[in-house]
């Protein structure tokens, strides 16, 4: 088996973070559970947001988890890919909008 930093089976051990700091882990998991409950947004809508964010933060565990969750919640492949494009567009836009800062600096320095 190849030795990598990420192991898919580690996702199942997520709760074990409480072994080293139970109080904070308990607070996190309780809050996490509440976040994904039905609220002003539906649990289904939150699942798609989570899928997009998982790609933006490039978390392989989250991508596995929320690809499964989005399938279970009845999203189509096209809907899931469009969510990834939204994440990519924000990331790409975030890079490009800094181009204005670069232009400001260049304009300040040059005659």
């Amino acid at each position, binding site marked *: 088996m190849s030795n990598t930093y990420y192991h898919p089976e580690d996702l199942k051990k997520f709760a074990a973070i409480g072994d080293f700091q139970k109080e904070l882990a308990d607070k996190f998991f309780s809050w996490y559970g509440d976040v994904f409950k039905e609220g002003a947004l539906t649990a*289904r809508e939150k699942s798609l947001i989570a899928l997009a964010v998982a790609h933006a933060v490039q978390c392989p565990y989250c991508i596995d988890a929320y690809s499964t969750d989005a399938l279970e919640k*009845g999203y189509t492949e096209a809907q899931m890919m469009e969510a990834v494009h939204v994440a990519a567009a924000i990331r790409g836009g975030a890079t490009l909008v800094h181009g204005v800062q670069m232009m400001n600096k260049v304009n300040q320095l040059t005659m």
Partner: protein
Amino acid sequence: MSTLSFQQHPLASSQRQLEVLSRSNAGKPFPAFREKLAASGIWPLQPTGIEVLQVNVGKQCNQTCRHCHVDAGPDRKERMSHEVMDQCLHVLKQHDIHTVDITGGAPELHPDFRWFVGQCHTLGKKILVRCNLTIILANKSYNDLPSFYKSHGVEVVSSLPFYNASRTDKQRGDGVFDKSIEALHLLNAEGYGMEDSGLQLNLVYNPSGAFLPAAQQELEAQFKKVLLQQHGVRFNSLYTITNMPISRFLDFLLQSGNYDDYMEKLVSAYNAQAARGVMCRNTLSVGWDGSLYDCDFNQMLDIRLADGLPQHISRFNLESLNGRPIQVNQHCFGCTAGAGSSCGGSITT
């Protein structure tokens, strides 16, 4: 795609399937289903009373779906005899079993299907037919099935694994989605699924892969919205069903490397409330040869009723069958995961 039986695939053997189901996960055994029931205080699992006779009239089907727990297909020749159908009718006549649930294969392919439905109708039973939709268009002689169903008060229960073509066809075969929509239009035209018609058309969703179904109500809303807006199709209810880790779906799980994760998912999603409402508690399953089983899944795994009980419909005895211990195995985790799963959809809300 051909059936496991036609391929002489090792998983065509129920014994081989049970061996796979008994294996451990990376050296760590899955908990036994019966132990979960015991911990929930429902072991031995017993019937609440037989209300539904589910009759599997044969394994022949015009489709060869990738997840089929029956391993049904065009090449399957197993078919219920007229004599066994008569024995089923005798039991229905003699006992207060209010519903007959006719399944297959595609039950409509049985040459005595219409006669059998007619007899059940005469007996005043509620009749469910598990219609795969495409059978209605498979041959001119089946085009009038919607009007036949209507004239016999049949409740139509039809599989449609998703509201788009790509995911449906991956599971059920190329072109199945479009044909299913066409068949649904014919059923709607007859009044099925239409408000106040009294003609029930219920769809069955099962995940097209190694994942669990979403909440039934939520998926039903999506199906209704998309099918109406994009295809002008109406239906009454959506039943969400979990794929059982047996037969062709078991083959898919093993081939795709998803078996251990899927079983772990089913086991960890065990729901005691769903276990209390499993369909085997109010249903008795009859195989094509008249053999009796606790459910259609046990039938396909050849898990017979407990020793000492009537094993054939000709020896039906309501009292002893109502007191039977229901036979369980590891596949039963499929019926108790999450909101639970039955032929009538999720067990809990």
